[in-house]
């Protein structure tokens, strides 16, 4: 029995990745790990794009992946800067420690 790997599998994997990322964001309090989880979510989307683009035979999906990667890099730069600034204030990267503003 051969394992035929089709678009469905990739999409399934993508969904699993997305879920993993989401759960990561939901459950972790370390800013860096949260950030990494978000990267997983974006990559899940990328996987979906690639899968669809290949299935349809359309270039736009691949282009989109490139753009998402670029944007993710930009976000990473900004995100890490913010995390550094956070750490300077509180000496922690626990996002739960930052709740001066509420109500």
């Amino acid at each position, binding site marked *: 029995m051969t394992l035929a790997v089709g678009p469905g599998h990739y999409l399934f994997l993508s969904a699993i990745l997305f879920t993993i990322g989401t759960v990561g*964001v939901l459950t972790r309090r370390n800013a860096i790990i949260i950030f990494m989880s978000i990267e997983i*979510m*974006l990559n899940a989307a990328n996987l979906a794009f690639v899968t669809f683009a290949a299935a349809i035979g*359309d270039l736009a999906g691949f282009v989109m992946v490139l*753009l998402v990667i670029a944007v993710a890099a930009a976000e990473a730069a900004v995100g890490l*800067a913010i995390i550094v600034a*956070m750490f300077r204030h509180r000496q922690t990267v626990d*996002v739960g420690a*930052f709740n001066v*503003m509420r109500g």
Partner: protein
Amino acid sequence: MSPIDQLLELHAMSRPAAFAVLPALVLVVFAIVTLLADLLELGSSRGPAEGQAGPTIMAPWLAMTGTAIAFGAVVWQWLRLEEEAGLYFNGMIALDGFAVFLTGVVVAATLLTLLLTVGYSRRHNVDLAEYYHLILMAAVGMVLLVEAANLVMVFLGLEVMSVSVYILTGFRRTQLRSIEGALKYFVLGAFSTGFFVYGIAMVYGTTGTMDLAEIGTRIATGPPAPLLLAGVGLLVIGFGFKVALVPFHMWSPDVYEGAPTPITGFMATGVKAAGFAAFVRVFLSTFDALADQWVPVLWVLAVLTMLVGNVAAIRQDDVKRMLAYSSIAHAGYLVVAMVAHNALGTAAVLYYLAAYTAMTVGAFGVAVTLSGRGAERTSISRDYAGLGYSEPLLAAAMAVFMFSLTGVPPTAGFVGKFYIISAAVDAGHVPLAVLLVVASVISAYYYLKVVVAMYMTSPSSAGSDAGPTHAHLGALASTAILATVVAVLGMGIFPGEWIDMARASVEGLATAAARLP
């Protein structure tokens, strides 16, 4: 035509193509120039020691000039719209009334923000060239978002805008609140981006294209696939985050409070307007055929947003936080206009965004001028007490904004609400209209609180030992506030022209019930 040829043609950038993105182009150029000019400044006389970034002199002026030119470009686009309307850059950019109108709104919001921020930046030590650069870049993102005719462009515009605003939020990096705001905005923003991108993927997967018009034609045939619906849902979530719909609004009070006040105003108006532009274009035009699917969801979101936003706002004492909740509520009103799902509602969105921008920028402008050196005086009960007598003109302007936000004639806010309610009633959503009314009445309570503080209390009775608040009203900020007052009253007393413009702007957009009065 091969991809290579296409690419070449793109580089050639025929005049019409450049014309289509002219405002964005101008903004980009000036954003870069702003940074470069700073290098010159650093190298010359006033550069402080240790290579620290120092206060800038030229950047605000460059930025303002650029934005003013960009606004001129928008006007030019508007005047030549009939000849030049169409799709550009391989269908990436749409030049239509809708885009030009909202480009005008976001560029105007940017210009007003710049006018307001100059004095503020000096007082709060954020007058760095990067600050102005980022404002311009955010504006570029907004313009692209407004003009986007392809989901790729939507994503790109959204991210250019968002990333710039993340940084702007945290720009007062020595302030914990500023950083905390940036953190919250960033974490939730990035999270929502994940949903948004995944949504685009789903739509792309089921329709095979990311071109908005093409998607529209493809989904018009046959029942929607589950994956497409999931995509629609994910996009609702993504946009819902950007325009702060309940329950995706949690970030906004904290972020608005933490951000530098002019930036808060910018977020509340420019970011929101651009977000709505894409939201409306995608849902009312592209997903028009799926209206039966998304209208109920947006109905619920609208009600939740209006009620939660307004109800939560009534116990706020921080004017920025109050305006944050207020801006959530106004997003709810705008969604009501979308739910109406007719041309009237779409036009109402445009008119309302213009009106809302004027009054909200104005209100934040007043808050900006009140913030002293280092201290943001934003407590309604303390800092606004007796303002009507210590700063009569400024308070009068604030009162106009508050009444306009409440929706009292003869202000722009009233006409806007009138417009939205009429769209809802016309579409048969009378219960929704009634809920909007109820929400408005609740909102009156907290807007009036500001008026009460300004006119009906005194600093001493409010228990403030700081004495009456005085404004830092430079010529620029005064101009901005005056302009918004004139706009709010002008659009309220003579709404005809504006309504006609909004109406003309939505003609290009395909909507189901294109029946306009």
